[in-house]
């Protein structure tokens, strides 16, 4: 096996080399990748102690059950917003640390892919706090399982249900619907077909959207005031479910109850268009921006023959010959670029020791804790240059933690990819043209130059190149690296080089 194949495994399928990783992958690059997926699922240590989606959702409901005047008197208004913000920043910092240190970088890339496929962005208040837990609990454990099970876990997640309004979708002829004169919201039904399974050209009609939406009426979230439900967890409200038969994609469903929707999802998961749609996205994600239709067909066949076994499907993608050719067509998204630099340099946010944050309890969350988010709220007032260095030097450990969390978030955001803030239910775009605009490229270069100053006292650029991307660097970039007049300049050239930007 060539060093080049190892570099492809580490950079195209992984996040980028940590020191030593290139050598570890060199013996058998394909094997190195697949072994990362074979062990049992474990939550990365950085996420230990973080509250669950259900706990967050329950806490949110309970917060708003307290009359407003009382809320304000006790803690001041807006404390929920303060809390979720701290929560998000800590989750993001922990996720960066996972990416920067994980021995399973391929798994991490798949988590990014599937989160983006089934994306819930931070977009409306009732899901602010549950987006990161959603990725941890609903996406992470399912990336090598059956697509059908994955789909059900996603569509029954309170996070997705609230994001796409299924909690306010009622069967117009259901008991609840008739009594309250309310009806269907087809948002989730539509996005399941358009974005999660068949794809927009997958051969469904507006009628199918409506029928699927009817089939999942009543799929909602338990609430503290609803007896028999677990607050914050999935709950099926029988009295909101549209009665009568539904006809989806040529098949009639008339069982009623929660099973009706489950049967629909099982059939949609098996639909040939789903295999093609999902496969084309996967192939595009890991090979080139314009995937070869034969490659897509090959993966879609595996998807169909294995009944959507994502381990089999992923293995087939790794084994695509084209995945090991035509290197460099993909541009790393900002998140991955930052993670690649952190892996290469051994950097982490706050020494990989970001503390978890529990759920929001009105009585215990202390507003004075928000010192850390002062930086986020006062970006324009922060000192600059040497004053900034002095400012950082005077921070307490808690302030320093807050500072590093804020900076990690800002660095990715400034390149155009605020973590968890995808532009909509279609997720982030996945082509070089979407990420390679003049300003974002300049921001990457500026960031790399800033980082290079930071590392210049301890990292040798030529040695670092050898340990990471040298087999993938152009002659021009290698020449510039060798000719660099200083360590900082050499690191700047290496970290901003196309080999670091692309995969």
């Amino acid at each position, binding site marked *: 096996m060539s060093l080049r194949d190892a570099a492809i495994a580490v950079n195209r399928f992984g996040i980028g080399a940590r020191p030593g990783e290139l050598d570890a992958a060199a013996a058998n690059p394909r094997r190195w990748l697949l072994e990362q997926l074979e062990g049992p699922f474990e939550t990365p240590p950085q996420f230990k102690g973080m509250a669950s989606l259900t706990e967050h959702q329950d806490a949110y409901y309970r917060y708003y059950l307290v009359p407003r005047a009382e809320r304000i008197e006790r803690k001041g208004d807006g404390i929920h917003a303060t809390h979720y913000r701290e929560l998000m920043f800590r989750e993001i910092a922990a996720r960066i640390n996972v990416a920067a240190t994980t021995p399973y970088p391929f798994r991490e890339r798949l988590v990014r892919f599937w989160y983006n496929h089934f994306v819930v962005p931070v977009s409306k208040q009732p899901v602010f706090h549950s987006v990161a837990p959603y990725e941890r609990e609903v996406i992470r454990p399912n990336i090598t399982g059956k697509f059908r099970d994955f789909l059900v876990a996603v569509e029954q997640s309170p996070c997705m249900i609230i994001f796409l309004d299924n909690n306010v979708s009622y069967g117009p002829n259901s008991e609840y619907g008739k009594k309250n004169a309310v009806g269907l919201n087809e948002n989730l039904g539509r996005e399941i077909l358009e974005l999660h399974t068949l794809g927009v050209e997958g051969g469904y009609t507006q009628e199918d959207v409506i029928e699927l939406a009817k089939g999942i009426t009543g799929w909602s979230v338990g609430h503290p005031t609803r007896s028999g439900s677990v607050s914050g967890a999935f709950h099926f409200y029988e009295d909101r479910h549209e009665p009568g038969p539904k006809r989806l994609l040529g098949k009639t469903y008339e069982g009623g109850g929660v099973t009706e929707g489950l049967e629909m999802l099982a059939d949609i998961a098996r639909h040939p268009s789903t295999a093609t749609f999902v496969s084309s996205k996967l192939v595009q994600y890991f090979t080139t921006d314009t995937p070869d239709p034969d490659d897509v067909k090959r993966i879609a066949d595996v998807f169909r023959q294995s009944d959507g076994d994502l381990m089999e499907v992923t293995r087939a993608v790794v084994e695509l010959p084209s995945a090991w050719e035509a290197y460099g067509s993909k541009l790393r998204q900002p998140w991955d670029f930052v993670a690649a630099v952190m892996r290469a340099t051994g950097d982490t946010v706050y020494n990989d020791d970001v503390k978890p944050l529990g759920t929001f309890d009105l009585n215990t969350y202390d507003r004075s804790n928000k010192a850390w988010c002062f930086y986020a709220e006062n970006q324009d007032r922060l000192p600059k240059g040497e004053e900034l260095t002095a400012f950082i030097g005077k921070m307490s450990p808690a302030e320093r933690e807050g500072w590093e969390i804020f900076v990690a978030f800002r660095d990715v955001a400034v390149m155009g990819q605020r973590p968890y803030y995808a532009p*909509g239910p279609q997720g982030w775009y996945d082509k070089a*043209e979407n990420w390679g605009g003049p300003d974002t490229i300049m921001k990457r270069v500026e960031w790399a130059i800033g980082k290079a100053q930071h590392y210049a006292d301890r990292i040798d650029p030529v040695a670092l190149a050898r340990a990471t991307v040298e087999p993938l660097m152009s002659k*021009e*970039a290698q020449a510039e690296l060798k000719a660099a007049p200083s360590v900082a300049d050499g690191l700047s050239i290496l970290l901003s080089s196309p080999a670091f930007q692309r995969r």
Partner: protein
Amino acid sequence: MNISRRTTLRGLAGSALIADVAPGLALAKAYTDKRFVFVFLRGGMDGLTAVPAYGDPEFYRARGALADDAPGTDSKFAMLKLDGLFALNPDLKKMHAMYGEGELAVLHSLASPYRERSHFDAQDVMENGTTGKAEKTGWLNRALAELPADTRATRKETAMVIGALTPYVMRGPESYSSWSPPTAPSASRDLMDRIARAYRPDPLLSDSLEKARTAADMAAGGDMSGMGSDRGVNNQTFIRMMGVAGEFLRADAGARIATIDYGGWDSHAEQNNRVDVATTRFAGRFPELYIGLDEGMAKLKESLGPAAWAETVVLVVTEFGRTVRMNGTKGTDHGTGGAAFLAGGRVRGGQIIADWRGLKEADLYEGRDLYPTRDHRSVFKTVLAQHLGVAEGPLEDRIFPESRGATQLSGLLKA
């Protein structure tokens, strides 16, 4: 920044464009001098806070604590009278002066064809220029392809995105450049040259870096000091970006179209919490936004200079207006009809364009929102056709399909 015609020509001398430049400049004075700045206030600016209809008999009752002091009152927070029905927000003092000088027109009760109340969908529909979410390119990007040939031939880049993210309205296959304030001290030219050489084998990165460097040079050459007051809030970024937009657009061979996003307008709570800036440096979260808008408009005018300002149209829009009545948290919720501003030397200012239905509950949209009486696209079409010289055919077929009902306005721009 001083880019004279001569230095521009010299700057372009090495490029293949040089052959086109000379005849293009010789033509001058056609559409090639026209500038357009598109400002998007994200979050949904409250149209009745920006442009209160103080003369409507229902106004004070409907607005309650959200109403500012009546025009003419001896108060720092008195509305600024436009006519017997409308006034401007007390913080839009410079824009009020522009109105008086005939350089600002006010539009009211506008909405996109979208009638739900999601920020994101509303923005998407407004920016893709259609009636639904399917179209993935922005109308301004599609319009770039239809600009008169001279406009594009005489410059390297016709359109600039001011900001790190390309707004939907500019997304698409047509070329544009972008710029946002640098986050790090700028690197030495020598280092940037080295990085650029390392980029050479990569056409996309190489091209992007070159465009960004050109943009950074232009921005750095401008007067970036003394950017407004030192209140240190986010509106300073907007003001700065408006100044930079002016720098980009002023030059003879500079860009002609710029987009700028200005976020934070989602005023669900404490919308009109005013503080006197004479006694504190912070006027209140939402008042600061208006101050930023006001100073940003003035900054753009100053930065463009009189000659370029005379050829400019600035359009300020937001995705929707907000509920007429105050909600339980002293703010307003997502609504429908809203306000917009049109400014610049090419605008026939001093007028208000509004088919006003009134604020009685029966006259509101779904009993809660300002009733939309005009489609934004009628304004977009007016600017593209009458200001930038886009022909009717592509305007109706490709840029704004299915928009026949949204007819162009006459008398909005100077002849």
